[in-house]
């Protein structure tokens, strides 16, 4: 198992390296620079700024300087927030985004698995069609539409929940978490339905029924474990996706998370900030993919014995 993890981590290094290189040259290839939008900048001042941030060096020297810093864990200074390093900004935004992502994932799992399993038990009946149609809507509906709708209904008409903020008024975390989690709930529902349907058609489910097990035990004991493996495998990429994709929700609800910094950095050509966030998120994505792959393999006894050192 350890060998499997290490080999996967080694495979991740070139992936992340390519991401860094591509991002580095792409952001610099985009028209405009970090100090072009300032109202009046004397040429000398601009030159001084560029010198301070090493932007006057040839591109390849900038690249190698960046890699050197990165190897030491330094993501560099932000171009747009003078005096703050990218590391600082990342770690101030991360806890908020991570919390939002976690709640969203929790909601996605609870709603998604319940809906998917219920649908799989009576395929092609109303119990299947209704949750699955909702899931389809959930996947199709963008969060910039769902968020304002929820705000309109629950915040403004019904006045049940606060309409923005994070952690300042009780209950203000509910709407953003639902908005972010909805699409993932829909994916989880579809995955768990498909997974359960496949497992429920297996011969060993018939064996379990032939033993006289009550139906709920057939489902909970014999079917769930195998049926939810696709969901587990999806969780890793999903969580990384939640972190990276939360900026719309963060903007709608005025949440001081990572996503907003990321988008603003792109608009501002804040090279180090864009790069830093990209490197950080791609590392997370690789890591979470690995974790969910290991978890999914661990749940399958056959793969587990293969991975834990060449058993039978």
């Amino acid at each position, binding site marked *: 198992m350890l060998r499997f993890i290490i080999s996967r981590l080694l495979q991740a290094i070139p992936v992340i390296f390519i991401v860094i290189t591509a991002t580095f040259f792409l952001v610099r290839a985009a028209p405009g620079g970090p100090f072009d939008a300032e109202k009046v900048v004397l040429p000398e001042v601009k030159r001084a700024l560029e010198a301070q941030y090493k932007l006057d060096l040839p591109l390849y020297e900038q690249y190698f300087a960046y890699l050197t810093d990165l190897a030491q864990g330094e993501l560099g200074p932000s171009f747009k927030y003078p005096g703050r390093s990218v590391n600082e900004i990342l770690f101030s935004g991360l806890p908020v985004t991570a919390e939002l992502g976690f709640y969203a994932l929790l909601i996605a799992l609870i709603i998604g698995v319940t809906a998917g399993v219920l649908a799989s038990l009576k395929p092609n009946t109303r119990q299947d069609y209704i949750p699955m149609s909702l899931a389809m809507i959930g996947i199709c509906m963008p969060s910039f539409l769902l968020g304002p709708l929820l705000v309109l209904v629950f915040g403004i008409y019904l006045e049940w929940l606060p309409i923005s903020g994070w952690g300042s008024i009780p209950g203000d975390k509910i709407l953003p978490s639902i908005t972010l989690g909805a699409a993932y709930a829909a994916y989880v529902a579809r995955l768990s339905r498909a997974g359960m349907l496949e497992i429920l058609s297996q011969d060993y489910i018939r064996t379990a029924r032939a*033993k*006289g097990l009550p139906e709920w035990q057939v489902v909970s004991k014999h079917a769930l474990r*195998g049926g939810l493996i696709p969901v587990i495998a999806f969780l890793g990429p999903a969580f990384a996706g939640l972190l990276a994709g939360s900026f719309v929700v963060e903007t709608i609800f005025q949440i001081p998370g990572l996503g907003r910094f990321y988008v603003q950095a792109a608009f501002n050509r804040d090279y180090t900030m864009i790069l830093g966030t990209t490197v950080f998120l791609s590392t997370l994505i690789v890591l979470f993919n690995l974790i969910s792959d290991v978890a999914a393999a661990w749940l399958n006894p*056959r793969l587990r014995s293969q991975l834990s050192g*060449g058993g039978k």
Partner: protein
Amino acid sequence: MSLLNVENLEVSFVTRNGTSKAVKGVSFTVEPKQITAIIGESGSGKSVSCYALLGLIPSPPGRIDGGVASFEGQNLLALSEVELRKIRGSDIAMIFQDPMTCLNPYLTIGEQLIEPLLIHRNLSRADAKTRAIELLNEVGIRSPDSTFDSFPHEFSGGMRQRVMIAMALINEPKLLIADEPTTALDVTIQAQILRLIADLQKHRDIGVLFISHDLAVVSDIADQIVVMEQGEVVESGAPDAIFNHAQHPYTQKLLAAIPSGERDSGEAKGDTLINVRNLRTWFQASSDSEPVKAVDDVSFDIHRGEILGLVGESGSGKSTLGRSIMRLAPITSGEVTFDEMNLTALAGRHLKNFRSRMQMIFQDPFASLNPRMTVYDTLAEPLLLHNICQRANLDQHIAKLMDDVGLARNFIRKYPHEFSGGQRQRIAIGRALATRPEFIVADEPVSALDVTIQAQILDLLMALGREHNLTMLFVSHDMAVIRHIADRVLVMYQGKVVEAGPVTQVFNQPQAPYTQSLLASIPGAAML
């Protein structure tokens, strides 16, 4: 009084395309301490009849339309799901066809074994475990304690079927329903499992309902045989009467289809077409593991125009040997010459061109045909690829091939899913013949087919072999099929050829102990 008395059972399947009657007024009985066997081909309704008794057919689309199944004074068909559940796994237990898929891969053997005890008997887990280990011992599992905590994938098919049997017997049922329990197993394992079922049945005084497609399998153990065709019982009686005085034409057809007898292979065969010397095909899973010696130092000749039977159990390396000769599996060392040309040295374009001279027919006619290609496309591909004919007279060639393999010409635009298993195998044979090969490897070409269809395909292969002067390597696990079709036979065991010779000699005076045990395992030897 009968243990189980089924009268006029009617089951149908209701789908959007209408209602189809799967079981039409079927009646049979199982006496206490006896074995009743239901025989029929796929689609005859034999399994549906038995599953319906326990409420195990999926509903919808399944629907029980009528009938009575009295078991211990109750009508099983009138019971509610809750009442039925109390009987399932307790008074009536089941074992199924494929032990590889019937055990839950995510739970330990022990966990699955004790389940029936926990639900029906309210035993403590510790008591249940003791009982489970006793039973594992009884069904012939060598180290029951460690088996208890193992997962199914650690065991072979035969071992898993033993576990299934232990699981079925754990609550001491009065009736055991066994649905093709040995069909997925090798012939020697099949013989062991049949003996085990017969022994357990005698010692425990249970009635057994044994479903099979194979008359020979049940001939040794059944007290009563019920023959089903298309949802109806066409004949029933004691094995003796069925085998010796079958009344119904369908039963007679089934009996006639059992491969028997030998080909008269008196005529001298031609020169050597294929020469295999010290062939090794080893598979290395990873650099530090022991290689799997699928084919290990095998040498033999195939003469022009003969059918060479290659027999062995699963894992013996027989399929790999066939593929290695075809250059479809990587050869580790050794040499294969075809018509004095070294096949092992061929590569790239030369190998591709050479492939028209040797073709392969695969076991599973469902998986080996591309579902998105019509019969026409399937047959046209090799013809065009090897420049056998021009586009202008392609239609003519394909029509000739269809005639050769006995398919009606108007099927030509159909897709594989529109055909039955036997028809698909005919298409596959047509595809193999398209390049006018001299040599064909047939890898278990009839094992996925019903017995009457199997007989037709064997006849077709023999006729085509004569007509086109084909040389054939016929791979099979079934001794009776090999005896029927082959001139000479090779017996393979664990990657090596343990015996070789003319069919008459190998079957009548087997030399290798393994051949002897294979021959002793053929079911129904006494009856036939």
